[in-house]
């Protein structure tokens, strides 16, 4: 009997699913919106580059998962929501979701340095960014475990509106996770409940093709994740995750549906991480041609081109933003370095509510 061999990772070849093409040239954006999106994406990129530098210089520890390459997803979705009102739920790759949700860079950096001034008071670390003020429900380090929590936040909005008569309870929740999580039971269980109860939630799969070393195609019988929404009677959308205007468009539509009480949306953003799974990952399995293909589709460069083409910004405008953000990121490091460590006398604080 001849067994068909499983596809191997040939370093010279890769396969690419055809990316959804949305002509974003017709999407209206103002200069202000365009620059806001650009600034948020640059913040994500430069912040993560600084994290790599600090990690290799021994300033931060543990597992650090960077978001480079995926910025259009965080910015495209979170910046289509109401800051400080809507909820965001993330994974272990959570720094940039926190930044898009409005958590100050200095608080995220201080958390990475393990300082008392960090957004989780130095108790959480890279994979556990939280901010009640910014309605960041947290970074969840076990794959898929954030999906039920986010679903609960969405349930809460519906509950307040329908049982407590709170008309202002129209908050939407964005729940981020990766392609790897889409094979976990919690994903299916929560899609079922969210569709059943018409919960105001966006399930955003950042399909970056790789769950550490497990290629998505080797882990799932149906690689097109957005199609999994259909069995729950839920809207499923596929979007080019390297195009922030396209992501923003589908997110705005999904948010409008959720607020209108029309239920959840599953958004599959096709994207790529420009670095390894974590800073401890030798990243030996992904082929050079595959990486080159995606690097050439850098979402920040793409938006820059779109803004210039539309005469919404000049090269100088963008350079000005780059410089301003670099300064902000540098400042966040100074803040983190000079911040105090948690007080040892508070070792037990926060185990229980006070």
């Amino acid at each position: 009997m001849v067994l068909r061999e499983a596809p191997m990772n040939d370093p010279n070849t890769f396969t690419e699913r055809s990316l959804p093409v949305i002509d974003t040239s017709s999407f209206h954006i103002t200069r202000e919106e365009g620059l806001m999106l650009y600034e948020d994406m640059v913040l994500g990129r430069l912040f993560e580059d600084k994290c790599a530098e600090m990690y290799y210089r021994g300033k931060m520890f543990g597992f650090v998962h960077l978001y480079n390459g995926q910025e259009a997803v965080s910015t495209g979705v979170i910046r289509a929501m109401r800051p400080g009102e809507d909820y965001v739920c993330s994974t272990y790759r959570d720094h940039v979701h926190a930044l898009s949700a409005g958590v100050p860079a200095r608080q995220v950096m201080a958390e990475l340095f393990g300082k008392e001034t960090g957004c989780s008071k130095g108790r959480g670390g890279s994979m556990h960014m939280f901010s009640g003020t910014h309605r960041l429900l947290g970074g969840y380090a076990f794959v898929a475990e954030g999906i039920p929590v986010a679903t609960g936040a969405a349930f809460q909005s519906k509950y307040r509106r329908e049982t407590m008569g709170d008309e202002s309870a129209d908050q939407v929740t964005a729940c981020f996770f990766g392609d790897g999580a889409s094979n976990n039971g919690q994903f299916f269980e929560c899609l079922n409940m969210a569709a059943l109860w018409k919960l105001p939630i966006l399930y955003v799969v950042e399909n970056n093709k790789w769950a550490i070393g497990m290629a998505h195609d080797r882990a799932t019988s149906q690689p097109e994740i957005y199609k999994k929404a259909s069995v729950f009677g839920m809207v499923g959308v596929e979007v080019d995750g390297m195009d922030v205007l396209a992501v923003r468009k589908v997110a705005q539509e999904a948010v409008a549906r959720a607020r209108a009480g029309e239920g959840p949306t599953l958004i599959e953003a096709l994207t790529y991480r420009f670095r390894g799974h974590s800073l401890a990952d030798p990243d030996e399995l992904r082929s050079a041609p595959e990486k080159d293909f995606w690097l050439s589709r850098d979402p920040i460069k793409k938006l820059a081109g779109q803004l210039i083409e539309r005469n919404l910004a000049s090269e100088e405008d963008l350079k000005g933003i780059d410089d301003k953000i670099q300064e902000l990121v540098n400042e966040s490091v100074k803040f983190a370095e000079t911040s105090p460590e948690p007080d040892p006398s508070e070792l037990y604080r926060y185990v229980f509510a006070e």
Partner: protein
Amino acid sequence: MAETLFFNALRAATDEEMARDPRVFVLGEDVGHYGGSYKVTKDLYKKYGDLRVLDTPIAENSFTGLAVGAAMTGLRPIIEGMNMGFLLLAFNQIANNAGMLRYTSGGNFTIPLVIRGPGGVGRQLGAEHSQRLEAYFQAVPGLKIVACSTPYNAKGLLKAAIRDENPVLFFEHVLLYNLKEDLPDHEYLCPLDKAEVVHSGKDVTILTYSRMRHHCLQALKTLKKEGYDPEIIDLISLKPIDMETIRESVRKTHRVIIVEECMKTAGVAAEVMALINEQLFDELDAPVMRLSSQDIPTPYNGKLEHLTIVQPPQIVEAVQKIVEMRI
């Protein structure tokens, strides 16, 4: 409330707290239209609607996580585990998120959540339906663990658990739902962290909880006839352990027997023995004894099942032995 059945005491507690606070809701398998497998939530959906008495799909880990998310955003969920054993499927959400998230978030979020339902060994329910999760969850930081044992304390403890700002694992016992007791007409709460001195005595301190409280009371009848005078303490709070009450008793009796229904290895008694050794060693006139269930999956066969858990005559023997012991 005159004479009240155990499950109705729990139902009354839930009803009163739901009426008092619109943020309180119940979720779980068959809690709504079916009324709960032990009728603790019977007809509450008629009064409060389907969202406040939420029938969930059979997806323990996900609906537990959903409750955590709802609690983080300001609601006060009560999860009913149809059988507490099923919550092994929710271990991750209970441990990582309900238990640890407040700490991990540096106090950004609180999780006022009650997880309640029937545990313990019933009558020939087989191994999977006869679990005692209280020991499994002992090591999880951030959880309070409570075991009720009478209609009176079931009601007062559940009300207190619902009002607590922390996640509370609330253990009922599958064989106690039909106990009856006269309950006060006025509202009352029972503290979650206090043990209850069930019977005052001077010869030996018997520490127990849940259904084993009743086995100890059974043994007490024989012991009294034989002239023994044991003190019986229902721990109520399995985490944290109320060492104040234990200390007071041991200073009087200098002898301790722990009677538990969970398995011996790494059970509740193991932890209590360690605490007594650490804090009260000088008070002891004999080594602490423990009577626990056998370290086996609970067998279906009735005779084997009977042998698996502690029976009143064993408690009598243990008292006789420890009181005669001289060191």
